């Protein structure tokens, strides 16, 4: 992996990877080097997860090959433990793919260290069938909980300390594509059936539909719940350049539909500390930062021409992944083709 700077923009720091990258995660520890986990996406059974640190001052990427590990089925999502022990040299990272797996990454500094598989969480009774996981989310308020979403229409909540299923719900009528935690016992999911549903673990029988795609059965592909202001959620539709912003207190009617992308939107992330900022990226190679208007008081309407983003960045190729670092909120990571770029906000 070499480090090259983009000619277009001197403030975007690029890293070339030998294979296409899809999954990306920032380490949430506030210690100075930014650490990134990158999962490759090859249509074969020989994928890997690699680790890279980025020094903010010298703007240099430093790969950590000692920590990388094999992940044959490509990781659909990677996520570090949301509340790491500060000044600890090991972190926990979870990956979803065919199963949910937990890995212990011991970074002893200076490039040494190693990663090892800690547990494989598999709920299928027979070894014949497994339903691959499309996504998962680590509960920040209750870090023993991880919720996974699968194409078998179910969502599973794991207690990772016991290594056992806490509950498994049939969440939708069709494949579930994404899941996000709100509070300790509340999560939301989106599905191919076009609905956003909120589930409360205290009342598993019922779910609340917060939004349904206007053209029936237009799948919703991704969901993000604003952790700094739990009222707001954002979702992406299939084959659409729109981002739907929802206020859970007024379901069914989106707060806004952000329509400035010139091609389909692939990924989005809420700003980790500001209440209403959102960054999205798509096939037009643009990463846009938006400020979402506050939920309009009844009687007022949004400007008909729609909401404009505040900032934009052009990558030059379809951007497949975007992550906003929680520990270093002025850095956003994007992945396109085989490149990973860090953008300063």
């Amino acid at each position: 992996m070499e480090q090259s700077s983009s000619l277009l923009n001197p403030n975007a720091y690029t890293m070339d990877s030998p294979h296409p990258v899809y999954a990306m995660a920032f380490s949430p520890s506030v210690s100075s080097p930014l650490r990134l986990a990158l999962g490759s996406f090859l249509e074969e059974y020989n994928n890997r997860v690699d680790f890279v640190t980025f020094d903010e001052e010298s703007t240099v990427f430093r790969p950590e090959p000692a920590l990388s590990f094999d992940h044959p089925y490509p990781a659909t999502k990677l996520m570090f433990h949301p509340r790491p022990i500060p000044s600890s040299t090991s972190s926990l990272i979870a990956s979803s793919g065919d199963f949910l797996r937990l890995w212990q990454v011991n970074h002893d500094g200076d490039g040494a260290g190693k990663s090892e598989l800690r547990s494989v969480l598999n709920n299928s009774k027979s070894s014949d069938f497994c339903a691959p996981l499309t996504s998962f989310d680590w509960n920040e308020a209750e870090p023993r909980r991880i919720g996974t979403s699968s194409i078998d229409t179910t969502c599973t909540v794991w207690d990772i300390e016991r290594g056992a299923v806490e509950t498994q719900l049939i969440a939708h009528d069709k494949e579930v594509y994404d899941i996000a935690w709100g509070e300790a016992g509340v999560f939301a999911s989106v599905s191919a059936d076009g609905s956003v549903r909120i589930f409360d673990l205290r009342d598993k029988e019922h779910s609340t539909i917060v939004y349904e795609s206007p053209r029936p059965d237009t799948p919703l592909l991704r969901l993000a719940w604003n952790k700094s202001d739990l009222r707001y959620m954002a979702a992406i539709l299939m084959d659409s350049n729109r981002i739907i912003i929802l206020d859970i207190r007024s379901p069914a009617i989106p707060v806004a539909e952000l329509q400035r992308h010139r091609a389909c939107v692939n990924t989005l992330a809420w700003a980790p500390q500001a209440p209403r900022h959102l960054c999205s990226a798509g096939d037009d190679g643009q990463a846009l930062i938006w400020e979402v208007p506050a939920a309009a008081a009844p009687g007022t309407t949004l400007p008909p021409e729609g909401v404009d983003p505040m900032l934009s960045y052009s990558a030059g190729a379809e951007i497949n992944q975007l992550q906003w670092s929680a520990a270093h909120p002025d850095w956003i990571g994007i992945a396109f083709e085989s490149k990973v770029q860090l953008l300063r906000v």
Partner: protein
Amino acid sequence: MEAPGAYQEEVQQQRFRRQLAAVVRNFQWSYAIFWSISTTQPEVLVWSAGYYNGDIKTRKTTQPMEFKDDEMGLERSEQLRELYISLSAGDTNQQCKRPSASLSPEDLTDTEWYYLVCMSFTFGPGRGLPGKVLASNEQIWLCNAQFADSKTFTRSLLAKSASMQTIVCVPFMNGVLELGTTEMVLEDQALIKHITTSFWEMSFPVCTEQSISSPPFPERDEENNMIDAVISPSALFSLPNDNTSKEAEELHPNIYEDLNIDSPDDSWKDPTNTQQMAGSFGFNTELIDDEFSNGVNGSLIPSECVFPKAAFDILTEKTELNLVSLDLDDDASYYANTLVSILKNSKELNSFSRNLIGGCESSFVVWRKSFEAEKVVTGASQKLLKKVLSGGTWINGDCVKGVQEGVGLQSQVWKCGVDVSASHVMSERRRREKLNEKFVALRSIVPSISKVDKASILGDTIEYVKELERRVEELESCQELFDHESRALRKNNPDLVERTSDNYCVKAMSNGKKISLNKRKVRDIDEAEAEQHWVFSKDSHLDINVTMSDQEALLVLHCQWREFLLLEILEAIGNLHLDPVSVQSSISESVLALTIKAKFIKSVVASPGMIKQSLQRVVGKC
């Protein structure tokens, strides 16, 4: 367009400002503000006039530098006032460009900011320092203003950022005169008197009105004899001394850097968006007014409050100050809102602050609407995302290869790539359907089932099977006994045997009406309500079954055939006053199978036993 009256007012205003200036500079304090009763709202104090004498960072003046200090001071205060007005102006000023010599937010020190923000404050009766002073008509001298409780001194947090240590409020004319300094000055009544008296002395030259012995130029005068300090023109502008100004400088980058992190909506180089900023300013004053007039703990917009909390943390440099837990009184929340609006929305501030950090720039640029092709839809949209979400259908057909190559766990896991889970679901569904069908079939077989739920179906079936088993046992034992006895008794007493056995059998039979041993449905037997008599005889291969109903007798007979047997049987039946209605007979392998349905001729009905006996006699005759 000014009417003469307005002009007069203007002159008076000017004079008043000069007076303020004189006062402040006399004592070398940082600022003076005169709060007067609002014309629009009774009993509310608003900013009326002020003079800023504190630390300045950049000097933007329209006049040459050699101009008199007092004039510069006045000008500065004017500029600050103009800046405040432009920041809080409404929509009309959206596009206004300030003259190049006017101030912009990035030019201000913390103390100047404090002064500026003070302009936005209003105080209801008894609220805040000025309000209390007005209400009680007594002066207040506040030391350590930055550590003061925000209940007593609402702007304590603001003061902290500006290092404003001493604030004095004095009731004056129809309002409150407030002076503040970044120095720590102990309470001094004489000072206050001097303030009020010196105010009335319209003295333009600033030099020592107060004739007090003057120690040479003040460093940080810890003895707090500010009055004693020499007043010299240069001193004015270097006051507060270098320490504080350095601090302010250092503080600056920290604040702004941190602010930077917390306010991602920065680096907009587009200054045209003052509207939003201004709007929130305007909004906030309304909010204040409401809060103050209603005395209600303001209903804050929750989302706004999340951010100010962060801002506060930064401003107080992460001290232990227990901030804005959002259930503070309205004063603190007002403060919160004002600060929010300033910090969050003052975009120039943030954009400038970038330069402080060392010139590093954002990767992002301000978004500009392009009028090119509106939507460019590429061929395969969201390609990678769809592959990720498809759950492995991208694994091309030859999944066996993948399985073989996979490591350990993988090979167990992956069968056919396509729709693995779907077929699992389907097979599960089929299994369930099969089970349900079988439950239905069971229900139709077992007679006593009334309920349709699976548990009771199974329960009834169990009981039924037990019942059947019991009857089978009985039957078998009965038959054995019969055989045994019949053999034994036949030797001794044939008639007795038959009778006994008949009776025995009858008894057994009557209990077992429901037994169907020749595959006849239970229902049929029930309906017939018939008695059946079975006779099994192994020796002579004779089976006779006589079934009696109300008017009919059904005889089923299997026996060895001989000549004229059929005729004799029919004769015997006729003798018993039975009229054969239908006869079915067949002979196979010299065994006669005979089924006769016969009607009773007379009212006297032969008992089955008698019929059997006679038949046996007939058959037995060889």
